[in-house]
């Protein structure tokens, strides 16, 4: 650019820009705020879950390790129940659906669902963590 073109005096930013900017920013922050409110899920330990009062209505996530010999499958109805342990306490879990490939005793799982205080944790989703020495920074 030629130096002659530079404008030394500093004008104010036009109102239209300010308004459009505020509108966009407002929309972005509203979207983030509203969806955080709507979609945030509690991530609890088993002992926290025992004292949970909202878990019957709100879905929560719990992480733990699948205990040896606790898996009971019913393939016909795609039912599976097992006990998971987070190092301190254990929790029985019931789940219906397709079980991940690597699901077996001793692996880390994350379950998401409801808990009424009695009976097993009703999991809607069952996620298994990959336990091997998979140390690349690849995306999965």
């Amino acid at each position, binding site marked *: 650019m030629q130096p002659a073109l530079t404008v030394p005096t500093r004008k104010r930013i036009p109102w239209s820009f300010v308004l*459009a900017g505020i509108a966009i920013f407002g929309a972005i922050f509203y979207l983030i705020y509203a969806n*955080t409110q709507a979609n945030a899920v509690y*991530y609890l330990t088993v002992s926290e879950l025992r004292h949970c009062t909202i878990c019957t209505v709100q879905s929560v996530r719990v992480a733990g390790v699948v205990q040896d010999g606790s898996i009971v499958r019913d393939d016909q109805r*795609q039912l599976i129940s097992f006990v998971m342990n987070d190092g301190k306490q254990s929790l029985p879990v019931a789940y219906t659906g397709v079980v991940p490939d690597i699901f077996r005793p001793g692996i880390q799982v994350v379950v998401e669902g409801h808990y009424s205080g009695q009976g097993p944790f009703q999991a809607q989703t069952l996620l298994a963590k990959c336990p091997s020495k*998979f140390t690349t920074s*690849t995306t999965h």
Partner: protein
Amino acid sequence: MYFSDLGTIALILALCFALYALIAAVLGAIRDSAPLIASAKRSALMVTFFLLVASAALIASFLTHDFGVNYVAQHSNLAMPWYYTTAAFYGGQEGSLLYWGLMLAVFAAIFVLTSRRVSAALVPYVIATLMGIEAFLLLMLMSVSNPFVRVHGAPPPDGNGLNPLLMDPGMLIHPPMLLMGYMSFAVPFAFAVAALIKGELGSEWLRTIRRWTLASWSIQTTGLILGAWWAYHVLGWGGYWGWDPVENAALLPWLTATAFLHSTMVQERRGMLKGWNLCLVIASFALSIFGTFEVRSGIINSVHSFAYSAVGPYFLAFLFIILVFSTALFLCRLPKLRPEHEFDSVLSREGIFLLNNLLLLGVTFATLWGTLFPLISAALGKQTMTVGPPFYNHVNGPLLVLLILAMGVGPLLAWRRTSTHALWRNLSVPAVAAALCAAVLPLLGVNDVAANIGFSICMFTAGAILYELWRGVRVRHAHGEPYLLALYMLFNRYRQRYGGYLVHLGLVLLAVGVIGSHFFQVQQDAVLKSGQEMSIADYRLVYLGNIDMQEPAKQSITAQLQIWRDGQLQQYIYPGRVFYHNFADQPVSQISITTYGMVDLYVFLANWDGAGQATIRVFVNPLVPLVWYGGLLMLLGGITCWWPQRRKTLMHRSIAQPQLAKEVAV
């Protein structure tokens, strides 16, 4: 002497040369000594040479099955074919860091060899920055993350082998592309640092940094698309993008780089947004380092495993240094970054570029917010909380649709201000196309309002781009060129502009694919016995039985099914599961994906019992092929933008530019 000893020696020498190059470049720049700078350039090339030697040594260790090397023993075995053995080079943490170092060195070498085209004052500082980053990586490679460490005592007879999930053709190219993409953001960053130190942000600087960013952008696009493709074909959950922290880490620098590529045009044409652009370059590099830190430190709980490793804290420290250093530099130079013009009207090209930047940064911020939300919520004193894919879909979806709308309107606007009359004339054709699309879609069964809006906006933008192409071709045709030649000449003469259109068209296709598969995916599970069948959408699947196959290194179980459609047998499919003997507890799915027109029939074998029973999960994924075509088109567009202009056209441009400037001044 083993190959690994050679590797260790090469690493040490590379570090020495990198440190020397760093010091020589800075001293040379301060004292204005050409011999010192030339020496820095030569030693940067030596760094590349020694990293090539180190990488070759690691590959040689793999190919000779030297299990005395810890890394080789953990990531390969005797049964693996040679190509996976070679690819195991970057299959683990240490090797992938070495690969990073190598890529950075290769980029540095390319920079040195083409540095004659760059403003001479900037060269030493670019070299110094690149060598500084290289020295950090080499230090990591020699201490906490050394791939050449040997086992104590006798080497094991065989290695552990590579994780079976990685034994996939996609794995041969996806990680190296993504890692290369991450690292390539270092070059624009080095340019930004050099320009800040010298206080020199000329148009030549801008052209160079943009070409490097375009290259990074294209590489990262390839890496992201390949990652999505791999997830779709290997993981078996029917989707290609799960908003996992690891995926987000790769997306974040891509978003800021995209924003940068757009706002540089404002700087090029109007001399505005200089400081902003520098921020975006710095942010891209910082985010790629942040991604590495996040992936390797284990601070965020992910469904995918985050290998905890010792390098996390070092990367955090490095990220901190980068941020402090570049912020300080930036604040020092802020007075020099005055804009040459002011904004006139929202309804102008620069206005729409600003909107584009705001939206892209909005997506970046939302994604970062979601990724870090477990940390944020824990830090705010409450429970740890997480947000899942619905959060990202609901926030980023509308923002991306707005972005696509802006993409359609933007190219039709003039710089500074646009007459509404001209704008309406250009917009009428795509607007009519979008209205028609919105009216016809419900008749075709698209009853979801959000999906209809999304499709119609995609139609609008595709219409606007194609109409623009058509008008360009028509003008040239009127001057006597045949249509095809006219189209070719347009792309040849105005690479930036028409390459950009290609990227935009690609993104529109990708968006149509995403909307289609997001809103209209159908999923069904079934437990079938031999001879039983299930129906989903227009398809009928007949299950015949299971096949058990024994091979030397693996066993595979596949279910045999027939696909029927409209009363006709289409074909046989074999979804299955493969067990590698040395990873027997971690089977890999073989997913059957059959494409009919624009619809994928995705069949996953979930479970089986003996030879005559199988549990299958079937997805009908409409429009997913468009995601891949769109990605391909985006890459093609990126390369078109990047492709060097021939000298003749460059001269033509430099003659044309002062005229243009005068026009603007008038």
